[in-house]
């Protein structure tokens, strides 16, 4: 036990040095300080930090305990408790993860078969002018015991959804749970609705939002922990919900940003978190790559939706023109054939329009959801970094307290000594708690990522198959239309 703390202490002193040196050098010169990085000591406790895949390689500076720069900054001689050690992170023992992360999850799922249906419907405009808002009916049908009734209908507005998300994020994200983000706010879209424009674009906007809210709720209740959360139950069941005021300024993305700000600060502090667990590093890289590709794909699909809509409009316009041409053609059979062509093209334009809706609602929205979900996943990894940093900070504090106590022992001040000893116990507790929290969040993340990936595979499979089926339908219709037209064309004599 003590050796562990000693090495921790050694590390934390190095950390302290690193931080102080960084502060000193950064204030002195604009460029990054170039300290001589001498690796020390043969007795290292953790893996060596010369991993080429290290994400933080560029961001760190190493300092050797014996380096001459250190001397003027630390006061007095080295503490006897410190043993030289390589500046690496001591990560928890690996045996914690022997148990497969899936096992926990399967147990939970089998306990209660997932039987819950949620629909968001009947958008209704309430009020007038700029204070108007849309209200949606949320219907929950379930046989699960945690619900008081097996069918509940409530009315909710968009800010209620945002409020739910912000509560869940603040409760669960720091524990490593991937909380599905709520749909994005849209000032332009909402203003059109408020102003009362009954045109196609505002109808489409409301439908897009309704669908997004439904998907959001379904994803939220799919999460076994969130399903049992009292806020979720209250959201789905209670007829009156306290107005979520703080969401007026915040959107789903805004909340994520806020929660992640602390994690960002950690990243900027040039602390090197040497991942002894390759799993986390690998997963982070994978999610990074996935993020890039999904965004690219999303952009291409949005472009396709746009061009297909354009194609539909242009086909309709051509159909009308062909009909006119048929009218002016004075050869009867040709005139009839041209009118038929016009009819075919009109049907085809409707087909293109339907296909573009499929493109959008099936693929484009799914991709948009996943781009946001991956931001949440990345956020959860950052939370782990934050937990690690908190743990390390606690170790630093503990070391300081120990040093203080050691000094007091020579100074012979009994009451202060007692206080110091008390503080040491307090910080020992915090260090233990920090380690436990870090282990817990790591475990949670492994489980969450496993669940997330399973869902991702299912989601994409289901959606892509549905999409291909829609494409099949389109081609079958095209065949029908052209087969009907062919004899008409051949009949031109």
């Amino acid at each position, binding site marked *: 036990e003590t050796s562990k703390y000693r090495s921790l202490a050694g590390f934390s002193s190095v950390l302290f040095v690193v931080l102080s040196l960084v502060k000193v050098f950064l204030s002195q010169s604009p460029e990054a300080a170039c300290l001589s990085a001498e690796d020390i000591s043969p007795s290292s406790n953790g893996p060596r930090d010369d991993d080429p895949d290290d994400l933080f390689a560029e961001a760190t500076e190493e300092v050797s305990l014996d380096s001459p720069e250190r001397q003027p900054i630390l006061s007095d001689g080295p503490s006897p408790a410190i043993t030289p050690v390589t500046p690496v992170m001591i990560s928890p023992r690996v045996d914690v993860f022997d148990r497969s992360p899936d096992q926990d999850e399967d147990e939970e799922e089998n306990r209660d078969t997932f039987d819950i249906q949620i629909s968001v419907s009947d958008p209704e405009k309430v009020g007038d002018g700029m204070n108007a808002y849309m209200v949606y009916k949320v219907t929950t049908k379930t046989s699960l015991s945690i619900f008081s009734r097996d069918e509940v209908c409530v009315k909710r507005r968009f800010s209620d959804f945002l409020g739910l998300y912000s509560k869940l994020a603040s409760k669960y994200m720091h524990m490593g749970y991937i909380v599905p983000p709520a749909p994005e706010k849209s000032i332009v879209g909402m203003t059109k609705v408020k102003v009362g424009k009954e045109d196609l674009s505002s109808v489409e906007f409301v439908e897009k939002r309704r669908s997004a809210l439904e998907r959001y709720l379904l994803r939220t209740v799919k999460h076994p922990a969130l399903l049992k959360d009292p806020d979720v139950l209250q959201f789905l069941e209670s007829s009156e919900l306290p107005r979520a005021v703080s969401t007026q300024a915040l959107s789903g993305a805004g909340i994520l940003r806020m929660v992640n700000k602390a994690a960002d600060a950690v990243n900027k502090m040039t602390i090197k978190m040497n991942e002894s667990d390759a799993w986390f590093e690998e997963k982070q890289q994978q999610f990074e790559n996935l993020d890039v590709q999904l965004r690219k794909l999303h952009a291409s699909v949005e472009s396709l939706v746009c061009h297909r809509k354009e194609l539909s409009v242009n086909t309709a*316009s051509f159909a009308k023109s062909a009909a006119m041409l048929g009218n002016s053609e004075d050869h009867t059979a040709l005139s009839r054939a041209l009118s038929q062509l016009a009819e075919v093209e009109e049907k085809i334009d409707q087909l293109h329009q339907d296909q573009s809706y499929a493109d959008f609602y099936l693929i484009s929205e799914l991709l948009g959801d996943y781009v946001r979900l991956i931001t949440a996943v990345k956020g959860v990894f950052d939370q782990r970094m934050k937990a690690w940093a908190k743990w390390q900070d606690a170790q630093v504090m503990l070391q300081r307290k120990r040093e203080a106590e050691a000094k007091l022992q020579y100074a012979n001040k009994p009451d202060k000594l007692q206080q110091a000893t008390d503080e040491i116990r307090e910080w020992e507790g915090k260090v233990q708690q920090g380690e436990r929290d870090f282990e817990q969040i790591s475990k949670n993340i492994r489980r969450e990522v496993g669940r997330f990936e399973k869902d991702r595979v299912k989601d994409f499979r289901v959606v892509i198959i549905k999409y291909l089926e829609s494409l099949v339908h389109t081609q079958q219709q095209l065949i029908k239309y052209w087969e009907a037209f062919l004899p008409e064309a051949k009949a031109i004599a």
Partner: protein
Amino acid sequence: MLLCNVAADHFNNCFLILMLGAVNVDLQTDATLQVDISDALSERDKVKFTVHTKSTLPNFKQNEFSVVRQHEEFIWLHDSFVENEEYAGYIIPPAPPKPDFDASREKLQKLGEGEGSMTKEEFTKMKQELEAEYLAIFKKTVAMHEVFLCRVAAHPVLRKDLNFHVFLEYNQDLSVRGKNKKEKLEDFFKNVVKSADGVLVAGVKDVDDFFEHEKTFLLEYHNRVKDSSAKSDRMIRSHKSAADDINRIASTLYTLGTQDSTDLCKFFLKVSELFEKTRKIEARVAADEDLKLADLLKYYLRESQAAKDLLYRRGRALVDYENANKALDKARAKNKDVLQAETTQQVCCQKFEKISESAKQELIDFKTRRVAAFRKNLVELAELELKHAKGNLQLLQSCLGVLKGDT
């Protein structure tokens, strides 16, 4: 820059035959005079066409020969027909449009500039696409020049034209330069005057029902074809853009497939492969619609204009005849310059009757040609659409079968 040197055998592909057949089904392969474009070379700012002639006519020194001609020389030939009073009573085959590779060149240049910002596969793929596009435009322009020559060769009167023979046989440069600014301006004013006159002439009611009907018909028809042609172009452009999007989607899916750590990797790769294939089919659909529909409409836009021009010339001749009649009456009344008035009146009468006679036949032939061309193209369009839709369907269904079986 790209040099598209298309070999002779390359041209004996379906594309040209289809194009020719598309707009002129009546072209009898007449052994006495056969004209085709056997080769073409695209240089920086011009295209050189190799015009190949096979003929048993005594007018030519040899039975088979070739010359190299450029676009301006085709225009010169066309304009010489238009300006020839003898041919006033015929529908002059419309001149081929100027070869326009600007858009394609610009795209190729942009691609070259953006080479650094994309992966090697993406670059190669896009380069191939743009090169194929360039080649398609090139083939089309060759086809349109050839159709013009074939129409002339098939026309019983125009095929005997001396300028035409010179065009076919004279193996030196015709030294026909493009119109300079002054001449282009003159043309512009001529056209303005002509349209104004055309309106006046059109206003004169024709005694002949046939021509009166043709006048009304052609006016409306020409405008409607113009509209349809523009709308079909827009429709086809959207189709091409959608096909391009599917191309990008296929590439990104491929990358996702190679990167994914879950079972989805096989899924993505399979779907990427599918989209690569369906994209090619979609591009072909757009290309076939372009060929069978858009080009047909464009051609008949030009032909209907030529027919309108014929009607205008006849109308002009009619007005001149009527004016000559009035002048003769006046002269007889005043008993002054009667002989001169009589000769003028005779000349106008002959001119008018000559034009009317041939114009009637020309317009009937025009209708026959038009109906046949539309029939052929609409049938082929429907057949091709069916073929591609069935191809797409088969690909989609087989992929779905594999994907569903995997789960």
